């Protein structure tokens, strides 16, 4: 049972997609319910996995490895650890919600459900793959369903956005591909056979320059996916044009491929280069945090605002990764999940209002709290979760990241902390403009508050936001061992030492040492 679990997790959505595809063409109203129902199977599997996950164990669990093509050294090689577990859980949670949020999609519903389910399979596959070839396959394959989701069911400039999304990400993947090729060739040279197994590749003997180049290759791909400033401009376009479900899954899960990749691959494979690159990564992360937030402030479009807020929030995750401390890593891992929940929820909410008013322009709203109190309440709640209000989930990750990064890269952490002010500014100002005041526009006065279905969509997210905010232990327990192991890997492979508390001088020394 255990060893085929992960395979099942990937294949079930695919099978579900096939089932939906085979539904009779004249019963297209069936597609969404069937897809929604089927999407609970991966949720159940992942739930089982999550709660039977052995805490305190650093290695991969539920591993499965089957040779794919021996001569190339590629294999169907899956495993889950603390770093990926949360993301898998996030994926399976958001997909049913995204599907249930898509009742407004009446054109080619079946295809929509199929693409969403395929997207789910691809995303889960990316998080579970321990073989770089397999990872790349999933990493790149997820572009297609998302491309169609944006391109077919998006709004006016959807084609532009879909193409930009695809090409931009594919551009990054190109470097990833070249780097993966290089790794396998190196493995071939050093061990006499090519391999793409992450664990095999970790034992490669890389020269510093090789390690740096490859780090850059992986880094660019993931940086675009995250996205890290200045490679972020595809994101606002994609989000603004994507349908709600697309935005939810894009921001909620897909962007995490980047942050996950940095943690999983860049750090494991090229620890020395990673240590050397800390100043660069941290700089970009901090720029992303501040820049994303500043730019978000004046965005006239709600979705664009949330999109830029993602740039800012994901900066924290990258910063936590660059921190190379226990708290920083844990913060990054948990923030991956948290951001998925809050931003997913924000996009859902924006989608709900867009369905009613067919506009996302902040200027078109005003005083909505009067006519849609439940909506306003949920929005405010989610906004505060996103701002990082303690007690809700956003805080835990951000705080861990900030605290964790301060002990190794204090200057960056201090600047990054400024981002929390800006987050409050852009979200609360947006809330003020959209919800407060008197609803003076006639279109707004007629708006109906959320339906039970819509509230139902939000409930799981809200509950998770509170639970993870107050009791993140369920996640942290599962991640801690893996993040520690990652940190050990970095420490053992390099001269880097995780700063001990109370040795501030050593911290600065550690950073300058890494530069040599």
């Amino acid at each position, binding site marked *: 049972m255990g060893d085929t679990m992960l395979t099942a997790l990937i294949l079930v959505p695919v099978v579900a997609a096939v089932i939906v595809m085979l539904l009779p063409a004249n019963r297209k109203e069936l597609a969404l319910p069937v897809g929604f129902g089927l999407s609970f199977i991966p949720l159940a599997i992942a739930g089982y996995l999550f709660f039977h996950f052995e805490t305190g164990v650093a290695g991969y669990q539920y591993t499965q490895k089957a040779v794919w093509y021996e001569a190339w050294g590629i294999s169907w090689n899956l495993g889950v650890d603390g770093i990926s577990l949360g993301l898998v859980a996030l994926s399976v949670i958001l997909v049913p919600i995204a599907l249930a949020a898509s009742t407004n999609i009446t054109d080619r519903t079946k295809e929509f459900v199929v693409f969403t389910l395929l997207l789910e399979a691809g995303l889960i596959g990316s998080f579970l793959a321990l073989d770089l070839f397999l990872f790349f*396959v999933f990493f*790149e394959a997820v572009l*297609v369903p998302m491309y169609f989701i944006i391109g077919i069911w998006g709004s006016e400039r959807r*084609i532009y956005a879909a*193409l930009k999304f695809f090409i931009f990400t594919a*551009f990054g993947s190109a470097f990833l591909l070249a780097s993966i*090729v*290089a790794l396998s060739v190196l493995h*071939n040279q050093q061990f006499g056979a090519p391999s793409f197994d992450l664990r095999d590749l970790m034992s490669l003997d890389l020269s510093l320059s090789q390690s740096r180049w490859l780090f850059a290759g992986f880094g660019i791909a993931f940086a675009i996916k995250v996205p890290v400033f200045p490679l972020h401009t595809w994101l606002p376009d994609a989000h603004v044009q994507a349908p709600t479900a697309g935005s939810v899954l894009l921001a909620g899960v897909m962007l995490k491929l980047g942050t996950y990749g940095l943690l999983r691959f860049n750090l494991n494979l090229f620890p020395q280069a990673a240590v050397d690159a800390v100043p660069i990564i941290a700089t970009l992360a901090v720029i992303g945090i501040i820049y994303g937030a500043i730019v978000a402030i004046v965005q006239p479009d709600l979705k664009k605002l949330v999109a830029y807020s993602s740039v800012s929030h994901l900066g924290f995750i990258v910063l936590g990764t660059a921190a190379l401390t226990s708290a920083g890593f844990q913060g990054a891992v948990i923030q991956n999940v948290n951001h998925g929940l809050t931003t997913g929820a924000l996009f859902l909410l924006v989608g709900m209002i867009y369905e009613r008013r067919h506009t996302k322009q902040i200027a078109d709203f005003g005083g909505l709290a009067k006519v849609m109190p439940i909506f306003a309440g949920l929005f405010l709640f989610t906004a505060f979760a996103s701002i990082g209000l303690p007690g809700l989930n956003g805080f835990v990750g951000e705080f861990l990241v900030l605290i964790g990064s301060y002990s190794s890269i204090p200057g960056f952490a201090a600047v990054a902390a400024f981002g929390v002010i800006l987050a409050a500014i852009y979200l609360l100002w947006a809330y003020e403009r959209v919800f407060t005041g008197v609803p003076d526009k006639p279109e707004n006065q007629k708006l109906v508050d959320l339906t039970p279905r819509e509230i139902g969509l939000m409930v799981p997210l809200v509950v998770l936001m509170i639970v993870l905010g107050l009791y993140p232990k369920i996640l942290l327990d599962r991640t801690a061992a893996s993040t520690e192991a990652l940190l050990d890997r970095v420490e053992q492979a390099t001269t880097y030492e995780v700063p001990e508390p109370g040795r501030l001088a050593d911290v600065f020394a550690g950073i300058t040492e890494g530069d040599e």
Partner: protein
Amino acid sequence: MTFAQVLTPPSVGWIAIAPEIVLGVGAALILLFDVQFKPKKSQLAFATALVLVTAFVFTIVQYDRVQTFNSATTDQVTDLVAQAFPFNLMIVLDSNAVFGRFAMLLVTGLGLAAGWRLFERLGARAAEGLALVLLSAAGFTFMASSTHLMMIFLGLEVGSISLYVLAGITREQPRSEEAAIKYFLLGSVASAVFIYGVALTYAGSGSMNLLEIQGIVSRTVFTRPAVLLIGIALMVVGMGFKVSAAPFHSWAPDVYQGAPGGIVGYMASAAKIGGFAALIRILFTAFPDFASTWGPLVAGIAALSMLLGSTVALVQDDVRRMLAYSGVAHAGFILTGVVAGGAGTSEVWFYLGVYTVQLVGAFGVVAAVAGAASSGASIDSFRGLSKRVPFLAATFSVLLLGMSGLPLTSGFVAKFGVFTEAWQAGYEWLVIVAVLASVIAFFFYLRVIVAMYMEEPVDEAVAMPGLSVRTSLALAALITIVIGVLPGPLLSLAGEASPL
């Protein structure tokens, strides 16, 4: 001494050329049959299919034979050499040749099925058309199996001259004529260049047999007569022309756009298979010792092809032209595998196999949408295809994504293979160029998908194509996906396809 006594009979191995015999005889029979009985189109189709299937069966027999050769013990080898190299070393029966035949026959079958409507519209000339297709297929498979430069040249000409005719076979279309004359003029120049290369190689080395040349060259590796180098250069140019590698590609867009829609897929695929088969034979079998010399040259051509093909394909409004330019880029990608030398053979073959299937399928869709007998296929005619004929849109998407090298399609495995080989051979820069070019390539493939799925339908009605077309297209798409997910078997098969 009678005349007969002068002649020592050559070693004959009929099985080694059995598929070609079937094709040639089949073509001749179809022509005769046509003259005599004025058969219906369906009968012609049946006859053609029969020829192809028979040839395929023989190829399977050949495959079996090759397996015996490959697993032969050392003391058996001498006996088997004669069988493996019949006709006094003119051709070889090795995996390379067999793989080439498999690919060629598959492409021919798919191409004919997908473009069958063209032959229905050709009227009385359908039989000639079919015969030419079969003959050219025989020519290109000869290119894949020859170990002699003159045989390669003959195969090249058999294939190419047929294609010149096929390009112009819808003679009532001015553009078809234009395509034919362009293809013919430039093609015959390229042939002349190639054969001049052969002549100079012969002059330089003293033989036209690739195996002998290899022996001679490797014995005298320090002497490199300029004539020999020029010979190599000219042969590379000639083959570069056939596979439409930049800067020898300029005929391809015009011809692919102008030639009849039903046959252009076959034309493009077959020329690529033949050209690359011969190119790797020449370079890998005869001149492995010169790899450091021709390697950078091929790499340069590859880089130029990928960049030029991708960027120009970007701005095309005609899907067939776009596919032609993308074919230029693909020639570059395949050449990326060629630079790796003999080690890259299997990857090159794999790439060739999967790419030509995609190509033939893609042109099949274009023919179904824009007409099998017409020239050109504006991207506008693909607008909203997903709503008009979802099947065509879906298969086309799969094929285009396959060509773009997206994972889970055969195209990705193929690209990955050639990139790995090139990297292994030390051409890192070429791989970087290649991956960037493939990013650019995404754009124009996606543009077609945009038109099909994301734009509003145009009024032009597109009929659901007939069964043969559907089968052929579905098969091409299926192969693309199945090989993409489970590349193992085909990779192993291609892995055996290193020349003896």
